[in-house]
């Protein structure tokens, strides 16, 4: 087991007694890999992420973490108007003693991390005034400066436009391949998972789930049962590169409701 490996088994949680949101979940991801969590609204994605992060104690099961975990929340609101630099610097919390202030080296490290994500020119800009994509990058930089081994992201692409979605996906890929970070993220977009993830976990509710390598799990039939929608696997060529993706079949204008009906 090397730093960055992550596994969990027998995981289950219920906010009310005997009303299991999920149960007996098992999965693992190793250093430098990307794991994506997919599930409809209310299937407990955020709860699972909190448990994996260690912020919530699971009702049953164990989480095995090797290394430092960093978290990127979905909506980042700060009460005070910190600058980007201040935000990134906070990643050094573990390395700065309780009663001491961050040193010049810490600030240098923060600046390096900002450079890495290409935001160095924004260092003194207020975090409040940044766009959603820029904020995500700043939080990435913070994870880098924390020298985290594992990065957990809660729906990182859901509030972004297409260009920023692409940027964030690129960065996730880059952090995993080049910095060898383990990345766990939840998403509502199966094609995002298909594009970057090595492994996937589909939360089908209760003790039903599908976990494993992304190609094996992200199939037309699995996704169709997850979202109650037909999916289509497409492969095409763009600039002489073979590209594969999954698209949902949305037919708002068809007067026949989807096979299983609107439950």
């Amino acid at each position, binding site marked *: 087991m090397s730093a960055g490996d992550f596994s969990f088994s027998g995981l289950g949680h219920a906010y009310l007694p005997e009303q299991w949101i999920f149960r007996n979940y098992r999965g693992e991801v190793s250093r430098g890999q990307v794991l994506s969590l997919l599930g409809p609204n209310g299937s407990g994605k955020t709860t699972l992420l*909190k448990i994996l*992060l*260690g*912020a919530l104690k699971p009702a049953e099961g164990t989480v095995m973490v090797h290394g*430092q*975990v*960093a*978290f990127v*929340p979905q909506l980042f*609101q*700060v*009460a*005070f*108007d*910190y*600058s980007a*630099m*201040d935000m990134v*610097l*906070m*990643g050094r*919390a*573990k390395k*700065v003693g*309780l*009663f*001491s*202030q*961050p040193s*010049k080296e810490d*600030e*240098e490290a923060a*600046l*390096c991390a*900002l*450079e*890495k*994500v*290409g935001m*160095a*020119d924004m*260092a*003194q800009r207020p975090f409040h005034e940044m766009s959603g994509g820029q904020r995500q*990058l700043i939080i990435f930089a*913070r994870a880098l400066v*924390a020298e985290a081994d594992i990065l*957990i992201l809660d729906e990182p692409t859901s509030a972004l436009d297409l260009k920023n979605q692409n*940027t964030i996906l*690129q*960065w996730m890929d*880059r952090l995993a391949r*080049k910095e060898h970070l383990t990345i766990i993220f939840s998403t509502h977009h199966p094609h995002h998972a298909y594009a970057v993830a090595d492994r996937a976990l589909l939360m089908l509710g209760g003790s039903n789930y599908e976990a494993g390598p992304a190609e094996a799990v992200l199939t037309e039939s699995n996704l169709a049962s997850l979202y109650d929608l037909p999916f289509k696997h497409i492969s095409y060529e763009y600039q002489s590169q073979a590209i594969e993706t999954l698209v949902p079949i949305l037919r708002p204008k068809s007067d026949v409701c989807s096979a299983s009906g609107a439950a």
Partner: protein
Amino acid sequence: MTDSLPGIGRFLSNAASKARLRLSQSPWTKPFPLAVILFFLTITSLLIGSYPVPLWRALDIMTGYFLPAGWTDPSAWDLKEVAVVTIIRPPRVLVAVMAGIALGMSGTALQGMMRNPLVGPDLVGVSSGAAFGGVLGLWLGFIESQVLILAMAVAGACGALLFTMALARMVGGKSDGLPLILAGFFVGAFFMALVGLLLSVGNPFYPRGQRTYNIAYWLLGIFRGADPAKVWLIAATTVAGGIILMSLRWRLNLLSLGDLDAKSLGIDVRKLRWLLIITVSLMVAGQVAVSGVVAWVGLIVPHLARLLVGPDHRRLMPTSAFLGGVFVLGLDSFTRTVIWGEIPVGVLSGFIGTPLICFLFWKTKTKGWNES
């Protein structure tokens, strides 16, 4: 490190060097002028007052006091004037400075800790709790022992703060936003009513009468009657608490992100919060025990400081300390010198503070204050 990245990371070296220039600025450069202002204001306050000592003579006495003999001619001084400048005024000035520093710093710490720019020691009930503890101590007859009174005040302050935070947490799930303010308001009112009850119910140790008025008077926030013992008391709590808050000031940045995030960054949120609660209680209790409830300063000063140096607590904490000192000392010198009849500083700070906070409320509108 600077491998060429597609799309994003191309244009940096120039910008990065600019950012690096900004880094070289010490966090103390901005607060420093304020420290100088505070120092000169302190000196000036020693020179002015309602007892008519000519300015140059007061200056003469001061310099004579600090410099070795031979520089000035003591034979020209009136004994009364010497007493006023060297014995009567310094304790009061020092108490005012310390009270201001304590309020400014504890307000900043509370706002950071609770992620809410609308709280202050008086609004979350800490001041009322401290007042209740102190009055209870007096009521039980511990008039002689100032340390005991202080201990009671600390206990009261701590209890009120915990009460407020627990209530806000039970209601809102997380300790910020509106639930916190309301909980603080309720708890503060409750403790103030307890103070009123103690004042109106006499007991054998504590006869009612003139002293009741004195306490009611003291609760409004006055600095009259400061003596060296009081100076030592407030100096001890303020300096001890101040050192802790100063060294924790960067941690406040982390704490102000919220529990989940702070935890994921690897800090022990619980421990840090307890440390802050106890420190803030200590500072506020010391201030209240010596000079009563000086309202609104702990709310206003951090705002003004944030306007000056921005939200980073590393700069904010020293700035609000000095600004608090300047604010309270300025008010006290004003009421001591200019106004006939000595309006309590607590009243004066309310007069200045509430319009100011209303103005800020209007200016910043809903930014971060309204929801969450």
